[in-house]
Each structure stands twice: as C-alpha cells, then as structure tokens.
C-alpha cells in the first residue's frame, strides 16, 4: 500500500480526485471526506497495493502530479511495533532505515546493496582501521564512456554521531530507489559519480555501541595503552595542530601525534588525493547543531571561492527548510562555530576541491547526539 501526496491545482482535478476516491473506495487520510478536497490544499490518500498502478496511471492521464509520501505502509506499521532489536536482522528488502544499526549490520547492508544493485553500485576497499577493521566505500556510477566528476560523502568520522551513518545509508537507498523515476536523480547520475563512505571511524562507532555511547574519537592507543583515541577531524593536514585542538590524548579534540597519524585519516586522504582532480564536491556529515559549514575553521580568512560556496550552501539550506521548516545556519566554521584546525573539510578545500562542506545534522541540543530514531526519517528526508 502507498500513501500519495497530491496538491490539486484546478477544480477539474479536484472533481477527478473526488471521483477516484469514491469509485475506488480509496482511504482518505487528509482530508477525511472527499467533499473537503480543495484546490491548493494538501491531499493524502492511501492506495491499496493492487490499485497503486491504476491510480498512478489515472493521475498521469489527467496530468495530476503526485509524490509518494509513504512507499510501503506495512513496513512503517511493522517498524513502529518493533521496539527490541534482534541481533540477526538482514537484507535491504527488509532493512529498516529508520533505526540505528550496529556495524555488523552495516557491513551486511553494503554487501547486499551491491548485490541487488550491481549495475550501479560497487563496493571498494579503502583501508584498515587501527583495530584492523576494513573500511569500504560505495561507488554509485552509471556506466558511460566519458569520465565523470565525483561527489564524495563520508559519514561517521565521530563515533557518537549516529544520525550521520544513518543518513549515508538513507541517501544510498533513496538514490537507488528513485534513480529511474526521479528525473533530477537520473540527470545527476548521467554526469556525476557518487562515492559514499558510510562509516569512517568504525572502531569508534563499535565502541559507542558496546562501551560508551558518547565516545567521539578513534581507538588508537597512546601512552602505553593508558589513553585512547585521536579526534579524526583534527588529524588532517590542514594547518594541523594550530588552533582548536589539544595535544593531550585525554582530550576529545586530541589532534594525534602528527598530521595523518591515524590509519583512518591516511586511508581517506590518500584516496581523495589520488582522485582530487575529478572531485567536484566534498561532503562530510556530522551532528549536531543544524549547520552547513564552509571552510575554514583554522582561519577567518575566507576561501577564494567563498561567494560561490555560500551561495550554494544558502540554496541548500533553503531547500532543507522547505521540507519541515528546520533551520540550518550557514557559514564558515571559524565565524559561526569555533576555531579548529586539521578538519577534513578544510583539507579537502586546500588541496583544490572547490566545494567542501560539513553538514551538522539535527538537532539543536535537546537530544544532541542521542537523537531518537523517530527523527531519522525527517532528518534524512529534509537533508536529501
């Protein structure tokens, strides 16, 4: 069953919709009665599965545009009943994108995603973490004879920001579910390749599931194993160690023993460095705070293309707000947040990638890092 969202534009359309609802006995969610359907007003109808195609065809015939609000009503019902997590959930056909998943399940998800979408998706090795776990990225690429520009997006640099890997998974799902039907997405893929890294800081992420929910850094040992973790987002070679960091391992913003001292940083940096002439845009996803941050954090001096960077970011913020009214502040880190050096976003821009942004997702602090799963969907939808 699907729920469709329609905004009828003319009286004729209203009439047709009223006719459709009464003759097919469709389930009106909004408004409650067919006589309350008005032009210019939101209409939500639940269409039983066997009638979905017929209804969509009829809407197309009458030039009535619609959006799929809920693509599978049963799935939503099932998940809202699921409170306990079983340790053996599995395949993306039943993969619940509105819940947080432990790393084991994310690994399985990646394998499955490639298997079910092999014409578009390939899984690639990036490197190994300090605890020797393998990091993978997914390449979403439509076969073509021309080389395409690349958009890179990474999630999970900071372990406790669970909404971030959840977003990367959601993003991949959205692209794969809609690339055939959504003209915007198919145009995208004609000209661009998407490289998605669902979790960079795998060791940290696992640690936040098993030991300390609010862990941030990676798990590299220091001082003979008496202290752990480097802040990966202070470890890149962009004015490394200069400001907004600590040289002390016990700090959450410990920048490491040197730029790219951490295997996670090094693996990502080496890859991006190799591909940099083809990378158009670098995106890194964090939480929380609701910001779209532009370079730099290490200095208030604006980057060379700062006008264009801001223009694009402001458009993104407006589009985001258009969905649920959520406000995202836009600006350079050093001006609207705090100073920091060694961030991946600064580094990406410094090596020549023109568009480099950090997204800090929901919320503004009432839940902070521990964002409840019922916010996964709206957060991801608006960020899409």
């Amino acid at each position: 069953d699907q729920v469709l969202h329609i905004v009828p534009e003319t009286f004729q359309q209203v009439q047709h919709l009223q006719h459709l609802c009464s003759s097919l006995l469709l389930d009106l969610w909004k408004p409650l009665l067919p006589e309350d359907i008005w032009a210019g007003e939101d209409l939500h109808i639940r269409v039983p599965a066997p009638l979905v195609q017929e209804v969509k065809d009829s809407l197309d015939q009458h030039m009535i545009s619609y959006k799929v609000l809920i693509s599978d009503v049963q799935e939503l019902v099932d998940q809202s009943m699921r409170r306990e997590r079983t340790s053996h959930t599995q395949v993306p056909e039943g993969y619940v994108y509105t819940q947080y998943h432990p790393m084991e399940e994310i690994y399985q998800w990646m394998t499955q995603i490639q298997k079910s979408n092999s014409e578009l998706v390939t899984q690639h090795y990036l490197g190994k973490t300090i605890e020797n776990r393998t990091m993978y990225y997914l390449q979403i690429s439509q076969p073509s004879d021309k080389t395409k520009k690349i958009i890179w997006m990474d999630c999970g640099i900071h372990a406790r920001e669970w909404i971030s890997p959840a977003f990367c998974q959601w993003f991949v799902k959205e692209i794969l579910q809609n690339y055939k039907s959504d003209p915007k997405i198919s145009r995208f893929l004609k000209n661009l390749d998407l490289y998605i890294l669902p979790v960079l800081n795998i060791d940290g992420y696992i640690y936040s599931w098993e030991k300390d929910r609010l862990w941030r850094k990676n798990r590299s040992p220091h001082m003979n194993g008496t202290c752990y973790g480097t802040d990966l987002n202070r470890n890149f070679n962009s004015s490394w160690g200069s400001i907004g960091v600590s040289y002390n391992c016990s700090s959450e913003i410990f920048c490491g023993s040197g730029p790219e001292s951490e295997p996670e940083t090094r693996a990502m940096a080496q890859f991006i460095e190799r591909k940099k002439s083809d990378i158009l845009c670098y995106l890194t996803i964090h939480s929380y705070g609701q910001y779209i941050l532009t370079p730099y954090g290490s200095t208030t001096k604006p980057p060379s293309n700062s006008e264009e960077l801001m223009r694009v970011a402001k458009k993104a913020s407006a589009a985001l707000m258009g969905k649920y009214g959520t406000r995202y502040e836009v600006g350079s880190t050093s001006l609207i947040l705090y100073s920091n050096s060694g961030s991946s976003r600064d580094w990406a821009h410094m090596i020549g990638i023109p568009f480099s942004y950090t997204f800090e997702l929901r919320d503004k602090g009432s839940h902070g890092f521990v964002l409840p799963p019922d916010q996964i969907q709206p957060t991801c939808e608006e960020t899409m």
Partner: protein
Amino acid sequence: DIDGVGPKYHLELVLEDIVDEDSTVNCTAEVLYHLGNKNIAPDVQFTIEGELKNADEADNIFYSRIKSLENELVAENIPDSHGHVSPEMEPIRLLAWVASGYVMWQNSTENTKFQFAQIKHVKQVKRSDEYLEFDYMILLHEMVSQEIIPWQMTVLWHPQHGVQVTQDSRQPKHA
C-alpha cells in the same frame, strides 16, 4: 563592552514550551560576563513578555505519583543509547534538564557552550517534608572542547515552589 568589568550582551529571544511547541513567549535578556574573575557566573537580567504556560496539572500528577511510591525511584541512562525515554521517566528527564540549566549558568564563560546530554543515574532521596529530592549524575556536553563532563547535582522540587539545585559538583572523567 563595559570597561573594567567585561562584555555585556543584549539578547532578544523566544522561549518555546518543550511539551507544547506552539506555545512561545518573547523574552529579552542582558548577560554580563566578568572578565576579571572567571569563577563568577555571568550576571543575567531578563524580562518575559507575557506569561509562561501553566503546567500545574502535569506537575501535580507527577508529584503525587512520586510521593506515593513505596520505594525510592532509581533509574539510569535516560535517554538510552537510542534516544528513547519511557513516558514515566520523561518528567525525571525534564527536571534534570531544567536543573542542569542552573549548573551550566554557574559555570559558563564567553567561551563555553553547554548542552544537557544524558542522565547517567538518578536516585530519589526520601524526605520528611513536602519536597521531592533527587540525586542526579548527569552528563553535560561542552561544544568548544567537545568534552562530556559528568556532574553530580542534588535537586529539590515542589509544584508550588519550583526547582532548586542545593548541591552540585563536577566529577572527574573516568580515564
């Protein structure tokens, strides 16, 4: 900047009711940071334009429920790792959040930004008088240093007399 004392900020803000997001009230405030002595909390003067929404009914329901418990309330990890808070624990969380505001205020400087992160542990302390008392161990998140700071606080509450933090102390991060 106020010479000899410190920077003063004039703020215009909107207060939003946590429980009923559509209920808002305008507020103006003046905050003065003491440059010289960082150990003094900033001065805050504020005016609320209008009235705060009445929460008497919910307050009294919560108050009676706790008063009638046979054993002292004990709980941990609110919210849990997935962000869930059970309905019975929601007032306990709100109380901690409000009380933590006092702790944050007392420990704020121009270079800190605190948020309430989680209740690690809470234990009710039975009293002979009409007040409810809770001993909390909470976690605060400080944005600039990104540190998670454990903080112990003793909180007194009564529907008519409001919230009071009678004792609080910063705890060492367990290395």
